[in-house]
């Protein structure tokens, strides 16, 4: 994971940007948003990583001055920061940048150079303005951006794009959203005049959430209820391998992994917990005898510092224990939320998801 450098954003992203992924800052016109891409680049230079800045709107010297205006001295990073100049040729002036795009109106001119720089070890490749590349090269440029993203992924590089959200066609907007791993909207507040700005997450595709719990607590049903698509490998009604689900709920997209409840599968649990950003512990509210096992599973995931909540399932059954009784029997502190659900009827499952996501965001 590398940091985005934007206050609070990393916690929404589940800790930062994983290597090989792409992030697009979708910036409303009239709002000062290009600082987002610059900030992500600068933060990573500070942490000793390599960076590339592709400029289409002014020569590298002015970009350096822009960084300075924000109080960021990039001169000290010397060779760690490479400039790709896609501006000078446009106005017919000289350039001393390491890489010069000779024909900024031709997307192939970018392809050659991006092919070369992607081999720079795990660099943060920052596009000062992807919208102006589209303006210069036409809508077809998007297909190439898709290829670049695949190359970044294969080379563990990170692609950071600033994109000014001018009134482009819906087709372009949809395609862009599709080819980026995360999209962060930067917008303005105010009816007639823009008086402030905000950012929000439109898409993140790398959040992983773990669903665990004792045998027959209803984990697979929970994953299925929550998922827009899910796969389960069931044998005789109980899970021996993994449940995998995928949820798209409001701004959040997450992969959900269910683990089998039997103790012999604990290594799988450990394996998934290493990648997960949060944990649902599903318990059967009618079976207090399974609570010690549930508690020990919870302790294992909490030991990793993972945000966790308890989902008290099967609340529809008459002799189900109340939330207070469960808290008492499991000796759970108030800091661990217990959410009542009836996974079969999808009751409470989205509430549980929201609570966990909020907890993941707060933990970062």
């Amino acid at each position: 994971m590398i940091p985005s450098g934007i206050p609070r954003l990393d916690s929404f992203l589940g800790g930062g940007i994983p290597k090989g992924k792409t992030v697009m800052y979708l910036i409303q016109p009239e709002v000062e948003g290009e600082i987002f891409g610059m900030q992500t680049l600068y933060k990573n230079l500070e942490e000793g990583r390599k960076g590339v800045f592709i400029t289409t709107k002014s020569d590298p010297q002015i970009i350096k001055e822009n960084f300075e205006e924000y109080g960021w001295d990039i001169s000290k990073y010397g060779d760690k920061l490479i400039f790709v100049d896609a501006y000078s040729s446009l106005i017919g002036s000289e350039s001393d940048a390491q890489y010069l795009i000779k024909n900024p109106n031709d997307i192939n001119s970018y392809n050659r150079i991006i092919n070369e720089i992607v081999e720079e070890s795990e660099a943060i490749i920052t596009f000062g303005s992807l919208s102006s590349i589209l303006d210069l090269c036409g809508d077809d440029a998007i297909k190439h951006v898709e290829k670049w993203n695949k190359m970044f992924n294969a080379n563990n590089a990170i692609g950071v794009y600033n994109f000014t959200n001018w009134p482009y066609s819906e087709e372009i907007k949809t395609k862009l959203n599709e080819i980026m791993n995360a999209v962060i909207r930067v917008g303005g507040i105010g009816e007639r005049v823009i008086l402030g700005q905000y950012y929000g997450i439109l898409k993140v595709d790398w959040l992983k959430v773990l669903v665990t719990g004792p045998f027959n607590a209803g984990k697979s049903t929970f994953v299925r209820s929550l998922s827009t698509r899910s796969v389960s490998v069931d044998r005789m009604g109980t899970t021996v391998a993994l449940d995998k689900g995928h949820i798209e709920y409001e701004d959040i997209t997450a992969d959900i992994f269910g683990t089998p409840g039997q103790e012999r599968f604990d290594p799988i649990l450990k394996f998934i917990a290493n990648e997960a950003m949060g944990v649902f512990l599903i318990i059967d509210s009618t079976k207090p005898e399974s609570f010690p096992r549930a508690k020990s599973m919870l302790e294992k995931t909490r030991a990793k510092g993972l945000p966790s909540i308890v989902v008290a399932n099967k609340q529809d059954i008459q002799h189900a224990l109340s939330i207070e009784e469960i808290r008492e029997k499991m000796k759970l502190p108030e800091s661990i939320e217990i959410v009542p659900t009836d996974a079969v009827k999808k009751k409470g499952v989205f509430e549980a998801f929201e609570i966990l996501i909020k907890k993941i965001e707060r933990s970062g």
Partner: protein
Amino acid sequence: MFHSKLDIDIPKGSNILLSGPPLSGTSMIAKHICLDALERKEAVIYISTKESGEKIQKWVSERTDIKGLGIVDCISKSLRLKTSIEDSNSIKYVSSSVDLTGVSVKYSGLLERFWNIEEYKDVRVTIDSLSTLLMYSNVQTVFRFLHILTGRVKKIDGYGIFTLDEDPENPQVAPIKQLIDIIIKIEKNKIIFSGFGIKEEFGFEIKEGKLIVGGKK
């Protein structure tokens, strides 16, 4: 609109294209329209691609109070007209005329500033000139930029005034006309006004830096 000069009322929220062949005086007329506004305590945001912000500020300050004047300077940085270029309260710099995102951010900042000052609720946003923007970016790109700007002018009930050093009938710039309510064409010694179903002609001359408008022709 220019009550003191041309006796035509232009509704608030209008976007006006001021066009004429090169050297026909479109910039001079645009500046005089701004001067007129400043004298009536309206705010002016002047986006300049031709003259430096300092030069425009000086020209205005010789004629009236510049308190209501904000300038977005698109050339000083790229031509390196000064060694140290930093935004002041009234002059904001963008890296080049290609940087339309930068232009939108800077005029928006100036709008916010005037919005917060009670006496400036009426604002005129001027671009001098669209022709420069069209030299660096294609017409679709400039169209998208203007789409946002003309929309903003309507939202704030202001006026947008954009100069163009060529014939707006030219097919290469024609799409931009969709965003325009009124076209003012400058020809030799005539100003031809068309829009809102009206077409009027006025005589004019520029004498010792002053715009003198005659009666309807």
